[in-house]
């Protein structure tokens, strides 16, 4: 392999890694909900889209400082997560998983339908004041927003790992995830932790929406990132935070590599295809993912 080829490979790997971190961040919101409440959130992509649109709309107001916009977006998304859990999911407690899946699919349809009505159909720019001078790393380069994305993701993962291992609330949440009845018997208010999990998904989506939005611009298509979350979490294991990180990195890098090496031969678009093939293979070989907890069923 010549030096140029190596440089190309390095650039693909670097780009894949940075995209992978972003996938991990969005997958984190997904895993948090599943871990605590056993519910799967098909509207994760729509959460991210909504957060991006809200942030863009608030930043569009004349003279609004960035930090205020971020805080407002966070507050709205937390309230939204709480509200969804309280109004829609709580009445569905104890019903088959299909009901919860369908409820989140319904929510996804509502959000996707309403956002163009409320915010208009055009793509909005969401610019963070961090400049766009690319930073050179060896033969490749990263834009500052990609770097911000990586830093934010690492901080979030560190924060949530600490939260689940050390804090009182985090331990309680793990207990709820493990066995709801026993947790309730030990005096844990299970419903409050369900709400907390959805609020945390709201936080992660808000941050994901702001970072993704400033990378790609904000419109309805931002929700498509939600579909990329599934290969990530299946690969890593639906209930594993470390799995979300690893799965995101693997999917990001694989995508970037096939886009670089296979696309020229088949005419493009493989990166929207290969992750799902990979996911089907994982489902057949190791359905609970790399770190996922295996469930034993009894009659």
């Amino acid at each position, binding site marked *: 392999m010549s030096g140029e080829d190596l440089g190309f490979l390095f650039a693909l790997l670097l780009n894949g890694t940075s995209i992978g971190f972003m996938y991990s961040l969005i997958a984190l919101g997904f895993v948090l909900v599943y871990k605590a409440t056993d519910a*799967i959130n*098909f509207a994760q992509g729509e959460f991210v889209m909504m957060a991006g649109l809200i942030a863009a709309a608030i930043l569009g107001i004349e003279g609004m400082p960035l930090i205020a916009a971020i805080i407002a977006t966070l507050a709205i998304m937390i309230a939204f997560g709480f509200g969804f859990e309280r109004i*829609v999911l709580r*009445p*569905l407690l104890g*019903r*088959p*998983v*299909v*009901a919860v*899946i*369908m*409820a989140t*699919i*319904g*929510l*996804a*349809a*509502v*959000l*996707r*339908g*309403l*956002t*163009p*009505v409320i915010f*208009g*159909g055009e793509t909005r720019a969401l610019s963070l004041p961090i400049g766009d001078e690319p930073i050179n790393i060896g033969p490749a380069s990263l834009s500052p927003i990609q770097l911000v994305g990586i830093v934010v993701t690492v901080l979030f993962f560190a924060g949530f790992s600490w939260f689940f291992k050390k804090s009182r609330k985090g331990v309680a949440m793990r207990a709820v995830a493990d066995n709801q009845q026993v947790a309730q018997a030990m005096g844990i208010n299970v419903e409050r932790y369900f709400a907390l999990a959805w609020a945390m998904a709201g936080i992660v989506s808000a941050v994901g929406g702001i970072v993704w939005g400033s990378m790609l611009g904000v419109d309805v298509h931002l929700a498509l990132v939600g*579909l990329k979350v*599934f*290969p990530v979490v*299946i690969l890593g294991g*639906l209930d594993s935070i470390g799995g979300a990180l690893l799965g995101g990195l693997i999917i990001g890098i694989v995508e970037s590599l096939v886009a670089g090496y296979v696309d020229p031969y*088949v*005419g493009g*678009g493989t990166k*929207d*295809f290969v992750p*799902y*093939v990979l*996911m*089907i293979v994982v*489902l*057949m070989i190791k*359905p609970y993912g790399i770190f996922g907890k295996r469930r034993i*069923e*009894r*009659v």
Partner: protein
Amino acid sequence: MFHRESGVFKTTYAADMALYPLPIAKRTVAFLALLFVVILPLSLQEYHLSILNLMFIAIVGALGLNILVGYTGQISLGHGAFMSVGAYTAANLAVRLGLPFWLTLPAGGLMAAAVGVLVGIPSLRIKGLYLAIATLAGQLIIEWTINHVPAISGGASASIQVERPSLFGYSLTTQTQLYFFLLFFAVLAIVATLNLMRSRIGRAFVAVRDQDIAAEIIGIDIFRYKLIAFAISSFYAGVCGVLYTYYFGIANYEQFQLIVSIDYLAMIIIGGLGSVLGTIFGAVFVTILPILLRIVLENVGSLFFSDSELANVISGTRLAVFGGLIILFLIVEPEGLNRLWRNIRSYFRVWPFSY
């Protein structure tokens, strides 16, 4: 259906499982046949018949999905893709080999069934939300493949023009002719589903849905029956796709995207999971809703939105109303319109003497 019973007097299992629960049910069916075969086509205009035609197609697809989701308890987010498999199979056969519809229709269905089984194979090891994700992947992979392989999709725009079906040398082109064509398949699908659910296979499906491990213990090969459910369900979906193709005269992958899978799930949830009558209610409701919504928004919407925005607003509102209805029915009436209908019926069963 519209008759009133005064109580339950069945003494044998055969009577309980009969297609006609009471002798009078035959008269109801005869009345419905008269209504749909003679009265409606004579009295309705072309436009209204075209709405009925869309309902018939939707009924076929929704029945298939209900066999899988409502009766067998599996979930599929890939039915839009199964329809596209049927549609493109039939379109390719019709255009390249010039085959008539009575060959392309089963061929489309069988091809969709084969693909459906392939997508259903992961159900051996996974279920519930994992299966939902696997079928979602199936949908996206099939969509991508059709869009990117010119041999299937017929070139750049990924759509194939198809001649309208012809019967005994007559081409079916007007809405009235297509009405009878589609009515036949809708009735066929309804009767087939009713009979399937009375059979050994149908009862095995219900056993798998209610408690799959227990079903396995009493001797039902659950993997086999899950695959049969996927095959039958996607056969219906494939036929539904072929009917769409013949009805619109074109096979286009944009008609079969993920959103279509969700539309059909909405039909069976709103109508009632695990019920043929409910499926029909759901298909009718979901077909009529966007038409009503469009009429309302075109009249009222111009007060709030400009003309250029209105198209966006209509499609957005339609999606949002669907989503909202799915959530509403899940929370308030999980058994759907079918349950509401049964409640009305049981109220009138003893009316006017309630006690």
